């Protein structure tokens, strides 16, 4: 089950995402990257994680690593309501820009080398990650969804919600990673 796509028919091809077995992989990659971006889709707001919503976890990750956020579709209003500064663009638009080596980035300082994705409908995120795998070979992508995304460079496997929450909390630094 570990590296099977969540939606059964979405068989990718020869190059598949590596599995994030420990949250420290994400932390290490973000620390190593020169310019990281986070893309947050509308489903993120629909994931209820008890006292907080997955959007709040993303805000904490972004804060910890100083990562700019691009919110897509209705996710925009979630950040606006929280008064959290973000940029907004549609999922297709940000995908399209990320494959252009000449893109200036959100801040005019150029293209990114690492992008974290979360919360776009599985099959749509799948196609965008596929597009980037093929046409942006220098870009690393990480899926923070709790489903295996074969077209990302790195992805969690299909995991349960509590396991996922633990991973996110570890990335945020709220809990120590077990050795």
């Amino acid at each position, binding site marked *: 089950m570990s590296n099977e796509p969540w939606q059964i028919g979405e068989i*990718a091809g020869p*190059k598949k995402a590596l599995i994030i077995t420990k949250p420290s992989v994400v932390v290490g990659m973000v620390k190593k990257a020169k310019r990281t971006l986070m893309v947050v889709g509308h489903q993120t707001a629909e994931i209820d994680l008890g006292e907080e919503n997955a959007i709040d976890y993303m805000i904490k990750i972004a804060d910890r690593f100083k990562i700019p956020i691009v919110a897509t579709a209705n996710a925009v209003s979630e950040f606006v309501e929280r008064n959290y500064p973000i940029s907004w663009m549609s999922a297709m638009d940000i995908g399209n820009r990320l494959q252009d080596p000449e893109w200036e980035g959100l801040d005019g300082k150029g293209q990114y080398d690492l992008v974290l994705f979360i919360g776009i409908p599985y*099959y749509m995120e799948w196609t965008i990650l596929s597009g980037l795998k093929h*046409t942006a070979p220098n870009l690393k992508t990480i899926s923070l969804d709790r489903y295996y995304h074969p077209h990302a460079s790195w992805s969690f496997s299909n995991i349960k919600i509590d396991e996922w929450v633990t991973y996110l909390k570890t990335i945020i630094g709220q809990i120590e990673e077990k050795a």
Partner: protein
Amino acid sequence: MTSRKNVKFKFDKLKSETAEIDGLEVSIGKLIREKWDEPYGPTPSPSLATLREWDLKLLKRYKPFYLPYCDVCCLCTMGKCDLTAGKRGACGLDICAQQSRIVLIACCMGAATHIGHARHLVEHLIEKYGRDSPIDVGRSVGVDIEAPVTRLVYGEKPETLGDLEEVLDYVEKQVTQLLASTHTGQEGDNLDFESKVFHAGMIDQVGMEIADLAQISVYGFPKADPEAPLVELGIGVIDTTKPTILVIGHNVPPSVEIINYMEESGLSDSIEVAGICCTSIDATRYNPKAKIVGPISWQLRFIRSGMADVIVVDEQCIRTDVAIEAQKTMTPVIATAEKNCLGLPNRTNDPVDEIVKDLVEGKAHGALIFDPDKVGEVAVRTATLLAPKRKKFKVIPEISEILEGASKCAQCRFAPCMRACPNNLPIREAMEQAAKGDLEGLSNLYEVCIGCVRCESACTNDLPIHNYIVGASIKKMMEEKYKIRSGRGPIQDVEIRKVGGPIVLGEIPGVIALVGCANYPKGGNEVAEIAEEFAKRRFIVTTSGCSAMSIGMYRDEDGRNLYEVYPGEFDAGGIVNVGSCVANPHIAGAAIKIASIFARRKLRGNYEEIADYIHNRVGAVGIAWGAITQKAASIASGFWRLGIPVIVGPHGSKYRRMLLGRKDRKEDWYVYDARTGEKVFVGPCPEHLFYTAETKEEAMVMAAKLCMRPNDTARGRMIKLAHYIDLHKRFYKVMPDDIHLFVRTETDLPITMKEEIKKILAEKGWKENIIPDPTLLPRMVHTKEEKSDE
């Protein structure tokens, strides 16, 4: 007068040494008898590369963003080839060209399907009604341009059924040539593939137009009638105490002959004819007493409900396992099209009595009958005799069976049911709830389930999950009683004269065309909500096919049906159902007629100029929220070549590439000012040509934005900006960040937001600009002589 390829002689008096003949007329080959004196434009009957320059202009602005469905190519025996990230296949092809090639193959399939449908229909109608049967789609209400797409593309004006054959010859040839270019070792460049995709879409529009012209003319469908009748829609409107015939598909002659036979036999009131997909819309266009079950996704739930005593299928969008499914409810299936024989024995030449006997006695579970008249008789007689025996035998389970079945759910850790479901519906949770005696979870899935039954195929315990969903919702299902306006056909020339100005100037903020299939991410109500939103805002909403049905299956806050609230006129605030899928060209045709009737641009074989006009002036946007098929792909590509943007729902991202503009690249958004020849920045209008939206809210914000055109007057732009900003603020709770790109002068600013926007403009360093007479074609710049003539 002769057309280009055929010859006609007419002699009032022929005298020779041996004879003297009066009034001899000789025709060689087929012929379009023209009474159209408009001179030919530059591109009548264009071939594959004729409009390539135009396509490349669009593709320079709207570059493909590729979204490969998989990493390999498996189209020839040198494969499978791994094309990941720049690798090339054994033939030299890369992933971009391969994706475009697949899009082209899909569009060829779509175009071939409509054209094949048109050919079948036209041949049948010629056989029955004669080659000289006139084309008339609303002459009495002033529809003079009866075939805008055909006139524009092919360059002729068809007047009779026979004339249509010649147009079909042309489009069939184009599809063959296009398909040939997808062969291993042919076209290798992605943009050239894309140009051919546009060609396929354009050809497809001609094919669809031919099909609808033929059926409207001969069958007497509503002819450009804004008050086409309201007909019944929904499972609950079907009187299941009567023998019931279910028709599925798109090609209407078998349904027509069923209705005719019922009338001839005095059985009109004792049998129900209900349909799924476009055939049902067309059956109601023929006879408003026919009923519509619902869109494509309602197929299995209705078949399994056992309400149909006979199922008649024609072609397209029919479940390929319909014969297997129908056997479960002991319902015979009659297949009627060579394209869709379903493994059934050909009984076309057998006596009707024998076929009926075999079907009624269960000796045969189906029959293939190519003769629509015979289908009519067999279906009606079989339904009548079989209904008392079948007693509506169904496979939808009773509540007790569902509860028992749910208790067998193993609650699999990795829920294969959910993982097989296209919409990732929470089936496992619903089953867990049902096992505890609560069916609400299953019932909640009813509206969002697209009826694909992948969950059932995947279930480790072979549970009939879809049946449980339907069974848990049976009350809801039987209460589905709605209305839909039957397809009206073309838009009247007089309507175009009335709205042409306001559309081109921007005062009617846009035309939103809700078309396509029912692969919705969250149910069909979303389409209706989009329609309602834009109709309220006084856009013109047009629709067709399954989307038109979804709009009908919704009630507004006051419990009203949208077709009863909003008029069927092509005017601000109308919801205009043009008809079935093949009626879609009436929407493109309306845009073409705006250029031709309102702006008096020449139509005949003048594609590029008309497309340039539409792209720069007509704020139309297509939304195919649940697009599924290859036909939907080719329909979209027909809009692209005209420069009309199309938005698809999230499943549409699987169409393998989008055509996206880049508003951050100023250099992409210049047009020529036809008055001066100068290049003028006009902002990203329209920003995209093919675009996937993640949610209905995003689709609405984007649709409002994509209605802006360089030609908008200040007043028009003000209105369009106000809608865009309002929707953006409603759904995203913030002002758009790109307003400065759409403001040309301060008079563009919506009055109530003027000060707020002015601040934003100042921050963005905005500068005032002129409103040009926009064109992408240097040849459209007026010459000095022309100017002195004016």
